C-alpha cells in the first residue's frame, strides 16, 4: 500500500509578456501524484516546462493556477522539506565542503555535535571523505554536484528535487553519478523528482517516467519502469532497457520536432 506524498493539482503557469508582448503559456494545467518512495523522472525537450513544474514544487516559482500539496499541506514557498539540486553549481563558494553540507542543519539550529555526525555520514555516502575542508572551487564538477546532493539530503527532506543535476557533466561522470544517486535511493528509500532531457538517464533512474510535450508543457505519457533493483550500469544494454528507450525516443522525437518547428 503506497501513500501519496506529493499531489500536483491542475497546476499551470503563464509568464506575462515582456514589454507588452503576448503572455507565454509555459505549462498547461497539469496533474501528477507522487507516491512515497517513487523515483520519478520528468523527461521532455528543452522549453517544455519541466523545470518550471519542478520550481513550482520547490516553491521558487508560483503557479498561475492550481496548487501543489505536500503531505496534504499546500506549498506556499520554498522550504527545507523539499531538497533541491540545481543544474548550475550552487555550492556556497565561501564555505568548505563540510560547511556546505551542514548549511541547512545550521539554519535549523541543530546542535554542533549532531551536525558533525550527520555531515560525516553524508560525506561518506557521496564518497567525499578527505575533502571536507576543501572549497568548492577546488573540486571537479562531479564532486561539486555530489556535495550538492549531500547538502540537500542532510536536511532529511520529504522529497528530493533534482533539476538536470548532471547536465553539465561529461558522459562518464554522469554515468557514475547516476549509479551513486540510485544507490542512495535504493538504500534510503527517498522520494525523488528528477528532471532531465536524457532518455537513458530517465529510464535508468526511474520507477516512473513522465514524458512532457513541447510548449506549452503538458504531461503526455506516464510510463512505469519495471526493471529490477539494484540496477547496475550494464542494464543499459539489456533488451528490456532498449525497447523502453526505443519507445521513449519515439515519443520525445515527435515533441522535439514540434518544438523546433520542423515538419
Amino acid at each position: 500500500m503506497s501513500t501519496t506524498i506529493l499531489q500536483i493539482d491542475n497546476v499551470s503557469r503563464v509568464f506575462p509578456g515582456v514589454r507588452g508582448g503576448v503572455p507565454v503559456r509555459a505549462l498547461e494545467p497539469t496533474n501528477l501524484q507522487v507516491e512515497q518512495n517513487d523515483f520519478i523522472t520528468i523527461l521532455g525537450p528543452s522549453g517544455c516546462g519541466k523545470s518550471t513544474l519542478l520550481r513550482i514544487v520547490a516553491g521558487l516559482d508560483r503557479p498561475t493556477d492550481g496548487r501543489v500539496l505536500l503531505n496534504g499541506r499546500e506549498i506556499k514557498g520554498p522550504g527545507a522539506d523539499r531538497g533541491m539540486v540545481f543544474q548550475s553549481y550552487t555550492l556556497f563558494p565561501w564555505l568548505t565542503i563540510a560547511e556546505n553540507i551542514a548549511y541547512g542543519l545550521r539554519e535549523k539550529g541543530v546542535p554542533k555535535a549532531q551536525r558533525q555526525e550527520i555531515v560525516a555520514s553524508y560525506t561518506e555516502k557521496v564518497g567525499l571523505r578527505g575533502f571536507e575542508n576543501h572549497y568548492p572551487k577546488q573540486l571537479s564538477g562531479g564532486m561539486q554536484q555530489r556535495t550538492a546532493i549531500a547538502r540537500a539530503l542532510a536536511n532529511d527532506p520529504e522529497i528530493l528535487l533534482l533539476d538536470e543535476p548532471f547536465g553539465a557533466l561529461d558522459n562518464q561522470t554522469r554515468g557514475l553519478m547516476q549509479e551513486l544517486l540510485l544507490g542512495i535511493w535504493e538504500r534510503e528509500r527517498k522520494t525523488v523528482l528528477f528532471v532531465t532531457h536524457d532518455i537513458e538517464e530517465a529510464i535508468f533512474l526511474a520507477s516512473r517516467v513522465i514524458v512532457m510535450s513541447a510548449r506549452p508543457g503538458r504531461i503526455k505519457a506516464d510510463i512505469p519502469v519495471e526493471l529490477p533493483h539494484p540496477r547496475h550500469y550494464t542494464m543499459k544494454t539489456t533488451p528490456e532497457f532498449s525497447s523502453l528507450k526505443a519507445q521513449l525516443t519515439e515519443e520525445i522525437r515527435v515533441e522535439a520536432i514540434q518544438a523546433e518547428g520542423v515538419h
Partner: protein
Amino acid sequence: MPRPLEPVSQGTRVTLGISFFVLFVAAWAFATLGGFVSRTFLADPITMLQDGWLLLTRFGFLGDIGITVWRVVGGFILAAIIAVPLGIMMGAYKSFEAFVEPFVSFARYLPASAFVPLLILWAGIGEMQKLLVIFIGSVFQIILMVAVAVGNTRRDLVEAAYTLGSSDKGVVRRVLIPANAPEIAEILRLVLGWAWTYVIVAELIGSSSGIGHMIIDSQALLATGQMIFGIIIIGIIGLISDFLFKAVNRKLFPWRLA
C-alpha cells in the same frame, strides 16, 4: 614582441615595475641637474631628499604625516560604518533601494572639496571639519558600490539557500553578506584611495597641520623640494595602505583564491 594576454613571471613583473620608478627619477634628475628646468619651479631629486630629511628631523614633519593619516582613516572608517550596512540594505531590499537610490546618486556627484568652505562655517577649522570632508567624499560612493555588488548576487545561490530552509533574514546574513564580503573589501580599498585626495584638499584650506598644510606653507617659501617630498610621501603611504589591504583580503577570503 610579447603576445596579448600572455602572463609574465613574478621576477620580470617586479623588475619591470621598479624600472619605471628608476626611469622616472632619472628623467627628473636629468631635467633638473642638467639645468634644463629652473630650480625655482622644480627642485632636483637630491635637494628634494635633503629638504625631506630636514622636514623630518627639524620641523616635526612626522607629526604632520601622523595627523593626516589619522584624518583619512578616521573619516573613512566613519563613512564605512554607516555606508556598508546601508549599501547592503539597499542591495537586498528593492523598496529601500527605490527610496534612497535617487538621492544617493545625486549626492554622489556633490564634490567633497566644494563643501570645505561650508563645513568650515559649520564645524570650524578643527578636526571635525577635516573628518567631515572625507566622510562626505566617501560615504555615498561606498553606499552605491556596495548596493550594486549586493544586488548582483547570484540568484541561484539565494534560491539554494531558500530550499535549504533559510529565512529572508538568513539569506541576507548567510548568503548576501558572505558572498559579497570580498567585493565590499575591494570597494573599501578603492574608496580609501580617493579619500586621500579629499584630505589634502581639506588641509590646503584653514589648517595648521598635516601634509597638505605643509605643502601650502612651502609654496609661500618657493620650497619646491619640500612640496615634492610631501607629494611623494602621500604616494608612498597610499602604496603601503593598498598593499596592506590586499594582504588582509587574501587572508580573510582564502576561498576566493582557492
